């Protein structure tokens, strides 16, 4: 599936929820699920220090696709990370560079991606794009 198709699926899934409570409960469930990153990659090098929550991101190249794993110490942040990973991981670098994150607004989680929220997510997206650019350069 393309990034756009995955994002559309996520938007569809979220449209089933009636209110913020259900959306948040779903996010929390996602957040509570298994670790999204191998413990060995939870290093300071991979750490994004948000003011509020910490985020770890690791990237690798597999068959010309970028594979992301990530984690956070806050559950809601981790839930959003799970959604971002679902949308961006396993995609070609070029597609990641070109993709946007407008779908996060559509699923009613916009406030968590505000630069002033300082939860590490904005930096995480920037980091995802940087990795994609680096791998794209490598592939060229």
């Amino acid at each position, binding site marked *: 599936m393309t990034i756009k198709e995955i994002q559309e699926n996520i938007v569809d899934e979220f449209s089933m929820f009636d209110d*913020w*409570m259900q959306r*948040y*409960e779903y996010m*929390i469930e996602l957040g509570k699920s298994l670790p999204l990153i191998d413990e060995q990659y939870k290093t300071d090098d991979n750490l994004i220090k948000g*003011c*509020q*929550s*910490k985020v770890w991101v690791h990237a690798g190249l597999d068959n010309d696709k970028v594979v992301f794993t990530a984690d956070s*110490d*806050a*559950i*809601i*942040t981790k839930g959003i990370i799970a959604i971002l990973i679902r949308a961006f991981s396993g995609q070609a670098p070029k597609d990641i560079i070109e993709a946007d994150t407008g779908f996060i607004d559509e699923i009613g989680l916009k*406030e*968590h991606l505000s630069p002033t929220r*300082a*939860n590490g997510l904005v930096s995480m997206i920037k980091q995802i794009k940087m990795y994609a650019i680096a791998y794209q350069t490598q592939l060229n």
Partner: protein
Amino acid sequence: MIDIKSLREDFPILQRKVNGQPLIYLDNAATSQTPKQVVDTIVDYYYNYNANIHRGVHTLSQEATDKYEQARRTIQEHFNAAHPYEIIFTSGTTHGINMIASGFESLLQPGDELIVSAMEHHSNIVPWQMLCERTGAILKVIPMSEEGELSMEAYDTLLNEKTRLVFCNHISNALGTINPIKTIIDKAHAVGAAVLIDGAQACPHIKADVQALDVDFYVVSAHKMCGPTGVGVLYGKEEWLEKLPPYQGGGEMIAEVSFEKTTYAGLPHKFEAGTPDICGGIAFGAAVDYINRIGMENIAAYEHELLEYATDKLLEIDGLRIYGTAGKKTSVISFNIEGIHPYDIGAILDKLGVAVRTGHHCAQPVMEFYKIPGTVRASFAFYNTKEEIDTFVAALIRAKNMLL
């Protein structure tokens, strides 16, 4: 006794809804809300006498100057400073601290010692670290206990004839502890050191008497005590303010300027270069008047009641730990619930209309002391009610059930 219901009518913002829920504003330690009386003063200034001060011979300039200087006297009386010119208008507490840190640069030698407390806001740490880097002075730290109280025994061992300056908050923003500043000041003076007290958190709760305290510098922000953001004052003893060099050069702070030599204006203008926040200063005066009409003792007594009520309610929640349990504290409760990140609690409380602060509260050394990433902080003002605390506690229990 104060009539909370009628006081709340002075704050239109308290009527608004957030995320469809009635707003419960419990982030007063970050900034207090602004009453109509202060907003009216701001409107009156811009509608009727907006002009630059200390310059024009025209009527508006004279009116603006009179009101600005009247505000200075109101603030002087409030803090019981000996002279109006010991009150320097600033952009806020951070600005005041930086002015003094900058002023001490020429007075320090390598090896001189500065003492800071373990529970300071970053704004009362970083300017001094920068000063130490520039001068070769050494920064020492008064440690604190698990309850969030400074060790006066340890402080005694840090003080010596090399100590030049001690700086400490009157009340900790992260823990609510009321520090024994009179003891801190007296002990510092005994070795000939000056003392700066950060009054940002204390000013809405306690009326500091700078002469009785014998403090050398006391800094506050207007927005913590019902005034506007971007304005504050530095109180400095006359002898110190005379001794320190000006902070910034510019208009207003000069006596005479030529390309060969400039002489500086007297106090307070020496430290007030450029056009100040005239409206902000006047509105700060209005905020001080407003608070004094209610009475600081009344405010403190009522807030203490809220603190005790909320503390008891919160401690009923399983797994909740309060950080900062000093014998003397103000209406600030910093806490965590076991197994839950403060960010998650804050995000859900916001959805339920409750505004609290989450994070490290610009006091990372305090968080490091407790080995936690941050806390949830609820801070109460005189316009909060027990009913609001009930709703907050119910929202917190709901958040806990969702997150655990």
